[in-house]
């Protein structure tokens, strides 16, 4: 899959995680934007199209599940991924049915696995 020009938004309240994600995704050829909260993410969604969004689950204010539900509602073409450190918690959250995720990414993630996950979702979509 050519990653050229594909836009990804990463959302996490921890700057270290955003930096780590950005670094890897940029070097893999994606155009990366970042947001520190659900609210910030929604504002960015108004400015451009994103091919995919990766969001942390536990954030102050809007949770990852809530954000991804909103994204699905307004921008259903954007592939949605949840980044989680709680292994089974995320699977039990009812809001997630609403979000219709394309995949879970467990922290810490393996770079190659993350790329494969994105590849799978983004190539099927077209």
């Amino acid at each position, binding site marked *: 899959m050519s990653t050229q020009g594909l836009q990804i938004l990463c959302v996490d309240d921890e700057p*270290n*995680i955003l*930096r*780590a994600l950005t*670094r*890897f995704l*940029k*070097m893999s050829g994606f155009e990366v934007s970042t947001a520190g909260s659900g609210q910030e993410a929604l504002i960015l969604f108004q400015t451009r199209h994103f091919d995919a969004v990766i969001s942390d689950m536990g954030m102050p204010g809007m949770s990852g599940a809530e954000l991804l539900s909103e994204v699905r509602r307004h921008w259903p073409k954007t592939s949605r991924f949840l980044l989680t*450190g*709680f*292994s*089974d*918690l995320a699977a*039990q959250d009812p809001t997630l049915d609403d979000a219709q995720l394309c995949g879970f990414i467990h*922290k*810490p993630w393996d*770079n190659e696995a993350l790329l494969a996950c994105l590849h799978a979702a983004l190539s099927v979509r077209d």
Partner: protein
Amino acid sequence: MKSTTQSLTWPPTFSTLKKYMDIYEQILDAQPQPQPRGTALNSEEFNLALESVLALKLKLQYDYVKGDVHPLMSETLEGLERVQNIIQDLKNFSRTDTQLTWQKANINHGLESTLNIVSHEFKYKAELVLDLCPLPDIECVPSQLNQVFLNLIVNASQSMDEGHKGLLTIRTGVNDDASLVWVEVQDTGCGIAPENLNKIFDPFYTSKAIGQGTGLGLSVSHGIIQRHGGSITVKSTLGQGTRFKVVLPVVQEPGLAPTQSHTQVQAAQKSLPEQP
């Protein structure tokens, strides 16, 4: 123990740093080179050369890389320091006591090493609260006590639901005449039913499914504490949590080796038949 050296950014940071070095090298190599005397580039050729360098910088994301090199180096260094600390903790934790004689050790230190090693067990499930009192060093077999702490901490962590963040509290203290130290490991997990409380120290007793663990942890821990002349007790409420308390003497009875059971020795001294 896949998670003990885990860091979001190491070792991937090192391979990324290598990639960044490649990028720097490509850009350096693309710079216009000095020409042999008398064959200078004319200004148009020179500008073209510079433009292609600029294009290369853009393609290789040079601005981003330049801004990321220093944070990445710091993170890599941080990761390496964390690895060093974990190795030191592992060494402390598993101090091999070759002669199995009593050694002087500080319980707080042992607890901290042990916590560092298993932090990933409870990191996402519970908040850790440490309430450690300054303690005198005690005569003990440090690696065995660390094994007990490990067992209690892992049990506590496994009792807690991944759904909502629980609380893992560890307290230590010393009694009034400084003859005894104590350690409490408390969780806000599922608790133990009253009818099971007297079974938990039995060998092979476990609440887990077949294949998950041996059920030996608490019985081995109990044996260790007993051989230290100490006690291990439990209080629990179903649905609320459990608290284990370990009490240990600061000084061991002279003449008593770590391998001998206190009850056996006491029984022999009192000329009573040996209690099983």
